[in-house]
């Protein structure tokens, strides 16, 4: 028992970027290893963060380990800067990293942390994209044991994964993997690109920006370094396809109902009259197109 317990100032304070310096250094080492071995899942001792495992704690640890006071951070979830989880993560980084700037503008950001999307605007050499990862290993589809999966990766043995894709074609006439599409990096390791839609997979290939993946619960970090090849697994006669946004009646690509874009990933939903509406999932991209057209984006 501690009658009238008083916390000492040291006990009741946090250091820059929340994690202690040893933890950040360890994660930076894991990141360097991940960049040296493109697509290889580097194990690290993931720390507990003050938000739930599964809410982006892996991405967050990567971001906190590389961020400095001169960085500008953008955080998105489902393509939006204003969704609850994006707001929560951004606030946490702002709170624990005094001096950093935040933005919703894709081109202004030096670090972009994202869940489920890669921004529509092409990224540059000066940017780092940090993706939050629930399942780091694409082989988990066919092999539950991590020890056995590790051997398979080392031996570049993806035969059972390819068989799984082939079986899909036989049963359904389609590869049924929608998001988290297994992608081969630099001709060797196949990675789980995080739950981005297939639409975003081509953006991984020879990306100018460094792409880092952080899996907090599964304790892995991996990377697609700049200008590195990323090929989704496919067959010669069955090419990889991205999501189809064409109207089956007219055969035309559906535009965003707001900015009229015909080259962005669309969210589909029902309006108050029960009619289907399509809008850009990347809110910053949509707003920018509206600005360019001269009309201000509507207020929420």
């Amino acid at each position: 028992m501690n009658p009238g317990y008083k916390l000492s100032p040291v006990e009741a304070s946090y250091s820059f970027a929340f994690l202690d310096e040893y933890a950040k250094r360890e994660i930076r080492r894991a990141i360097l290893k991940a960049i040296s071995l493109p697509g290889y899942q580097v194990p690290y001792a993931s720390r507990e963060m003050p938000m739930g495992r599964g809410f982006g704690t892996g991405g967050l640890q990567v971001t906190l380990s590389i961020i400095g006071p001169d960085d500008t951070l953008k955080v998105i979830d489902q393509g939006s800067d204003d969704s609850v989880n994006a707001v929560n993560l951004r606030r946490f980084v702002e709170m624990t990293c005094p001096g950093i700037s935040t933005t919703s503008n894709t081109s202004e950001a030096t670090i972009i942390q994202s869940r489920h999307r890669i921004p529509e605007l092409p990224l540059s050499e000066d940017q780092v994209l940090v993706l939050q990862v629930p399942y780091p290993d694409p082989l988990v589809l066919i092999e539950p044991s991590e020890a056995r999966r590790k051997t398979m990766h080392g031996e570049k043995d993806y035969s059972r994964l390819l068989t799984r894709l082939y079986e899909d074609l036989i049963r359904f006439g389609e590869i049924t993997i929608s998001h988290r599409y297994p992608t081969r990096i630099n001709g060797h390791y196949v990675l789980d690109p995080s739950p981005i839609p297939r639409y975003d997979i081509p953006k991984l290939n020879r990306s100018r920006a460094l792409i880092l993946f952080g899996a907090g619960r599964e304790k892995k970090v991996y990377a697609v370094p700049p200008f590195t090849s990323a090929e989704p697994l496919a067959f010669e006669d069955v090419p990889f396809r991205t999501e189809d946004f064409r109207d089956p009646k007219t055969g035309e690509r559906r535009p965003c109902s707001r900015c009229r874009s015909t080259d962005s990933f669309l969210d589909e939903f029902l309006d108050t009259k029960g009619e289907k509406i399509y809008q850009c999932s990347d809110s910053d991209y949509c707003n920018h197109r509206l600005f360019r057209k001269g009309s201000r984006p509507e207020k929420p």
Partner: protein
Amino acid sequence: MGYVAIKGGGRAIKGATAVLEMLRTSEGDRGTPLSLDVIETQLRLLTSRVLSEGGLYHPPLAALAIKQMQGDTLEAAFTLRAYRSTRPRLLETPVQDTSGMRIIRRISSAFKEIPGGQILGPTFDYTLRLMRFDLVDEDPKTFRSFVRRFLKDVPEDRLPTNFPRVVDTFRAEGLLPPASPRDITPFDITREPLVFPVPRSAALSTMARAETGSLLALAYSNMRGFGDIHPTVAELRVGYLPVLLPHPATGETMEMGEVLMTECEVIAMYEEGEDGGSPVFTMGYGACFGHNEVKAISMAILDRALQKGMRDGPSNPSEDPEFVLLHIDGVDSMGFASHYKMPHYVTFQSDMDRLRSTRRKAEGTGQDKTGKGYDPGGDPA
């Protein structure tokens, strides 16, 4: 039409936080804010559980976490664990000898007579689980008078300061296998990820901070028949363990404080001795912060099951180190279960695209030209 995608997250979070606080304080004038001492003392087993699952021995902070998380053990342990992430690890304790524990409870279900004797101590085991309606409306005066009466009856002669561990006695007889060597460096799960196969020390530390219910469920599967440990509790002890650390200047070990701990050793079926020696019993070990008996027993059973699995290969889920050790952490599992409440609009959109496309194929409307083909080569994207 307005931008209907996800908006207003900041305002919603603020509102949610306010409602949570409203529910906590909703008694208004009639309410008594919980003090950390009240939680630590009157909800001592709850505090124990959070200390143990949080993996940080700091009872006042565990009590604060319980108060702040409104009694949710998973959330409270999680909050304590997250606080731990912010503290550097300054040094390692040497191996601590639990025979010097200040015992409050100690039993053996294997041996009637044990050196030092059995002490039933604080346990609900033999109390009737009938509602004590007199607790509905209590007065601090009843606290005071009970404590006074209790202390008056405490015998003068002090308990011994050292209780040899039961198994040591039987180890001397050769009925139990020798203890593992003490000079091995334990695996630190807070600084190294589990990459399988892992040593026993990694398994023990993972279980020591595991979620009680998860450990219990897996251990119970072994007890019921998905396994064959058939354990007997050689010793279960609860008490305050003096923590010895080397003095920074002299290097001499000195007592830095004490931690409340539960320790359990089970004896399981015998096996052939090594190198064709006489058969010996096998052992399982469990220990955790706080007073958590079910957890320590479950851990000891699983330790024994995992040792078998590590040696012969698992034949039951509770013997598979990967299956057990990756699914018992409360912070991991509750976080992932909760994350399904977050928006999954993009991935679901992608799922719908696959289903529609597959259905069109099944209906034979053909669609070879749908979607964009993709050439992985080419210029920087």
